[in-house]
């Protein structure tokens, strides 16, 4: 497991701005993710969370500002989704991560198959590694779920787990979870939180995007609160209780409504 990293921050953005036409979606964001830090990125819909994520994962470049990956500056003209993957930044989307009708072992290796020279898949090897990912990396204990199971047989939380395990296996240094618990039952939420713990334990970093504070409180080391394109607060978990964080958010959104 990669415990000692030779960098301080896996990702950092300095004074990042992003405009879409006249709309300024991000107004000078300073944001960093430590090498083994789990960050809860909290904000309402439209606050700018997904714009931030899209800049981090290379979907589009910022209008201005600086990006650093593993403490090294990257030019945003040359940064894209492929590069992000190569730098070990993986995003787990709730919907767009797995092929529903395909067995789990295919889902782990799609796009990165282990093949014989002519491109034929080494199925025993892939299944063996799929099993290793499920058992050892994410501690998967779904009843009756095997590497041959179809994704459609899995619950929402289990699907997140499979996608997280895949990202971990392919040595992601930073795993971004985009609203992983939206529309999940409480039991499923607990599963996802356990999988998130595994990311932390394995020495990786994670950005957990959510607007459900109790969920994110359990797993995050630090909370970054974003509103209307600006970071409005930054709390270490040790400095704030769940109750205080909740109260802050409530007070904040009331003030916003008044202003």
């Amino acid at each position, binding site marked *: 497991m990669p415990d000692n990293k030779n960098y301080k921050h896996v990702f950092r953005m300095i004074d990042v701005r992003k405009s879409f036409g006249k709309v300024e979606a991000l107004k000078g964001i300073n944001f960093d993710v430590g090498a083994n830090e789990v960050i809860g990125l909290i904000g309402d819909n439209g606050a700018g969370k997904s714009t931030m994520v899209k800049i981090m994962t290379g979907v589009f470049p910022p209008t201005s500002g600086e990006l650093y990956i593993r403490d090294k500056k990257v030019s945003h003209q040359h940064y894209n989704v492929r590069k992000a993957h190569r730098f070990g930044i993986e995003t787990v989307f709730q919907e*767009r991560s797995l092929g529903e009708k395909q067995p789990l072992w295919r889902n782990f290796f*799609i796009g990165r198959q282990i093949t014989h020279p002519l491109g034929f898949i080494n199925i025993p090897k892939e299944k063996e590694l799929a099993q290793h990912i499920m*058992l050892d990396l994410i501690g*998967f204990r779904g009843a009756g779920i095997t*590497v041959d199971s179809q994704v459609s047989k899995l619950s929402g939380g289990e699907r997140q787990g499979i996608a997280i395990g895949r990202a971990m296996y392919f040595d992601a240094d930073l795993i971004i979870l985009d609203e992983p618990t939206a529309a999940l039952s409480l039991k499923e939420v607990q599963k996802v939180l356990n999988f998130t713990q595994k990311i932390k334990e394995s020495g990786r970093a994670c950005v957990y995007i959510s607007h459900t504070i109790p969920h994110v409180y359990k797993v995050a080391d630090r909370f970054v609160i974003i509103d209307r394109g600006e970071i409005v607060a930054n709390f270490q978990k040790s400095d704030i209780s769940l109750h205080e964080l909740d109260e802050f958010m409530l007070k904040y959104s009331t003030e916003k409504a008044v202003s």
Partner: protein
Amino acid sequence: MAKTDIKGESRGLVRIEALPIILVYIVIVVVFMITAPETFLRYRIYQSFMSTVPIPLILGLGLTLVVAAGEIDLSFPSIIAFSGFIFAALYKNTGQTLMPFIVALISGAAVGFVNGVLVAIVGIPSIIATLGGQFLWGGLTVILSGGLAWNIRDIRNEFIHRLFVGRIGGVLPAQVLWALLVAVVLWFILNRHKFGEHVLFIGDNSEVARVMGVNVPGTKIILFTIMGTLAALSAVILTLEMATFWTTQGSGMLLITMAAVFIGGTSIFGGEGTIIGTFFGSFIVGSLEAGIVATGLGGFWTRFVVGLVLILAVALHSALGRGTGLSAVSFLSFAFRKQKGGDSS
């Protein structure tokens, strides 16, 4: 570590792909053996099937991959005409056989490539792009051939005739072995090769495929090119078998090929496909006409029975949880509710 509880299906109990449709085929043959023993207890009818079925079968095998990718190809009947014409015309004008064969395959591949580019790069839905192709290439064939049939009787003496449509040992049509070879190769490509895996994921959810690094447009272009090449192979076999080219030689192939693929159990929704199912689906479609006529029902019944078999087969696949993704329980409860609704009215 209790590793066993997460292991895959035990190796001893391998599920047989397309088992239901294999059983359906056996049932149909047994029924015809009873209703038309004169015909169906003799080898001749099976020899006849093995000479005619390979042509739609090869098309259906290619189409299985296209449908598994969530796409459709309607242009192959025109490739049957177009590539068949190129083969016949080049043979007639040069007397060569290998060169016309290769050029015919390339012509089919080129049509498929154009289809692929229209679908994957230009972004035209495949049903529209290939419908246009169906008219375009079929029309071009009529223009080039002057609308005439071309007799190439002399080709019966050439090696290529024996190679593709000869009767091995005087009894076994060679084309069935070629179709079998295509089936085996495509089975391995779909189920064991990363290209096939990409096809399945594209059909399942092309956005997932793209995010996971699959070259979606490239895969689709190759896929349509393979389909076009197989259609051209089928065209050559048909032209050789009949020793004639005629402009409408592909018409009528579209619906029976599609019927064979769907009877076989490949889902129109993409993300899954069964080569073995298409293999037996083609033989089911190919056997029905002869069986119906031999039974004494008369040829008028053929289309009706093919339709019946198609609907029943797709319902069967749904009930077994394949295809549309309906589980057996929901299918039965649906059928039950329908019936109850019908009673009360």
